[in-house]
């Protein structure tokens, strides 16, 4: 009975708040509704309403998918210091980070689903009922690791919050194995997503062993950037104590990850351009254009500039210590990596085609609207989860029978 009450109380907390809170929820709902409306257009007409083609057969949806798996994986950067090094300041916010992972995984899965030509046949993927090409297909692997990560990131916080709600101490020995599992799992989701691309000799641009490490490095830069910004918002709107030391730790991780990420980008550029063979055509298209086609060129240079400026700010100690400059760096890094490993990674893999045809891709308003709807959905899920988590963490939300004082 306690669990039902816990879920009920949590749900009620999610949907009670100030006028501003409700306006925020409504605004998100409006964007979701718009995205759903445009998705209906796609369902009725087919994927022809997107900018994709036989030449560039994946686009904006899969670009967002690749990026969001990284955001989901980055929650591990809070999980490790909280549960392994027992940093109390980070323990206070780790559940918020796991809520972000849940929202990001949901968005990633939704971006794959809206990319499907036949979403009505999704059940074909269910093992035993359908036919699941595991362990051969990397896409099957991605389904396994993403759903597993989703469950882990729901399960652990659920257990911790339920106990806190009841005023009981959580059993560290019980949940710690799952925490360890979740840590390895976080790395696996992004590695598998990188392998999804790098497994294709048909696409030389992706067919590099560096892709997996590059994905992890960029995730560990973009993820903390988002967490740093989000924690400050939460601190402000929910009066939730976020220790400055948390932000400093994340900023340091972000600095190192961005250094590694840019080093990897440089290594790719050197290898492809020093002795430029045919396998370098895609990277040439991305950075310099090919045969007069260069729609991605401004974007990748813009993204690289953002990343470099962010890194400069992060590497100068007084600037990084200044919250205003740190926030600027976070925004730049987030946007920069979103472009670099979203559109900047997925699209050039298809240009030129394996038969040497150059065909450019530009997302349509349907794709942009559906994507906006999915992002709004993710933000909504995170908002609701964070609302309940914070209420329980602050002790506002308690089971009536468990009102004894709680010591953490």
């Amino acid at each position: 009975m306690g669990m039902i009450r816990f879920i009920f109380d949590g749900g009620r907390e999610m949907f009670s708040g100030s006028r501003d809170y409700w306006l925020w929820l409504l605004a998100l709902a409006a964007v979701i509704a718009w995205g759903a409306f445009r998705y209906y257009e796609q369902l009725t007409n087919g994927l022809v309403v997107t900018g994709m083609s036989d030449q560039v057969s994946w686009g904006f949806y899969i670009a967002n998918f690749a990026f969001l798996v990284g955001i989901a994986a980055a929650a591990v950067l809070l999980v490790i210091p909280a549960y392994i090094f027992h940093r109390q300041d980070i323990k206070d916010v780790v559940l918020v980070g796991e809520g972000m992972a849940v929202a990001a995984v949901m968005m990633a899965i939704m971006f794959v689903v809206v990319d499907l030509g036949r979403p009505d046949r999704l059940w074909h993927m269910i093992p035993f009922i359908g036919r699941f090409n595991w362990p051969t297909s990397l896409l099957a692997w991605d389904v396994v690791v993403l759903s597993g990560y989703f469950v882990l990131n729901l399960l652990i916080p659920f257990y911790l919050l339920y106990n806190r709600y009841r005023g009981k101490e959580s059993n560290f020995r019980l949940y710690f194995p799952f925490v360890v599992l979740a840590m390895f799992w976080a790395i696996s989701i992004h590695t598998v997503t990188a392998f999804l691309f790098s497994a294709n000799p048909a696409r030389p641009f992706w067919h590099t062993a560096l892709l997996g490490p590059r994905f992890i490095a960029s995730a560990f830069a973009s993820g903390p950037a988002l967490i740093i910004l989000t924690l400050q918002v939460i601190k402000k709107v929910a009066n939730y104590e976020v220790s400055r030391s948390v932000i400093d730790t994340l900023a340091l991780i972000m600095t190192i990850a961005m250094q590694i990420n840019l080093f990897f980008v440089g290594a790719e550029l050197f290898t492809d351009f020093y002795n430029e063979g045919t396998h370098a055509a895609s990277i040439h298209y991305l950075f310099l254009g090919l045969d007069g086609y260069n729609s991605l060129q401004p974007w990748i240079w813009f993204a690289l500039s953002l990343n470099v400026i962010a890194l400069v700010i992060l590497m100068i100690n007084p600037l990084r210590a200044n919250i205003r400059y740190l926030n600027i760096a976070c925004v730049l890094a987030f946007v920069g990596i979103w472009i670099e490993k979203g559109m900047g990674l997925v699209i050039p893999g298809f240009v030129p085609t394996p038969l040497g045809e150059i065909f450019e891709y530009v997302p349509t308003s349907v794709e942009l609207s559906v994507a906006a709807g999915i992002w709004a959905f993710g933000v909504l899920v995170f908002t609701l989860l964070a609302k309940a988590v914070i209420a329980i963490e602050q002790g506002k939300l308690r089971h009536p029978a468990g009102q004894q004082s709680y010591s953490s």
Partner: protein
Amino acid sequence: MSDDREIKDAPNKFDKARRNFLRGISVGAAASLAQPAWGGQTFSDAFADFFQNHYQKMSADEIDAALERIERKAQIRYGVDINCENTPPQENVVFGYAINISRCQGYRDCVQACVKENNLGRDSQVQYIRVLEMDQGVTNLEHSEHYYDPAEVPVEGKYYLPVQCMQCDDPPCVKACPVEATWMEPDGIVVVDYDWCIGCRYCMTACPYWARHFNWTEPEIPAEELNTDTHYLGNRPRPRGVVEKCHFCIQRTRKGRQPACMEACPTGARIFGNLLDPDSEIRYVLANKQVFRLKEDLGTEPKFWYFSD
């Protein structure tokens, strides 16, 4: 090789017509009413389609029912009686293809014949074969011309390289598919179950030959141009949102006929046959000509060779 289609299929067609006439009495009225609501099908057909199992997991009866649904759907959509079959692979046959690039003149007759034979979407302009115009002495595909359109072919200083599905013996597309909707048949043809494909297009990403095509929209074919001799794994009308590809004209070749592209080629550049038959022409080519395969270094083992005189 003579075209024996008319003689062979005449009784079959008559039988089909009778069956469809009888069926029409019961289904006709419901079908015309239900058409808009269930994607051009009756409710019961749409229901059965939704729960239809993977091709390889269906019983013989289930496959027969699926074939009849395909025929009914075509009747409603095009007003044409099609014959959808499930001809099994022949024993001891693995198909292979070879193209004599010194004979190919770039006429693209193969492309047109393929479009007609395989009921390819006319508005979507899907084509299984792409003939590349290349400069003499150049093999780099990035310098190929896909949309060559001179007043007359062949153009001086150019050669022509037709590319289609290579029916790889180690097909990366099959490995990629998350739901096993594509696989290699015992006769070596890589096929797609259009009723099982979820449309994720990962196979298109994996294919090094750009041989796979997606139905971004409902493929439109003029009813009078519909080829009514179809195969479940081949040229039957395809739904929107799924991937398709060259299947060596499975509806013809499993009955001992030539693929449409070979039949259409006016220069005799195309040679198709059974790789397991030591007396076949394709085996002669492999044994006596200097053959090469495209992107052999990727290890996909294409069953598609090129040679020159």
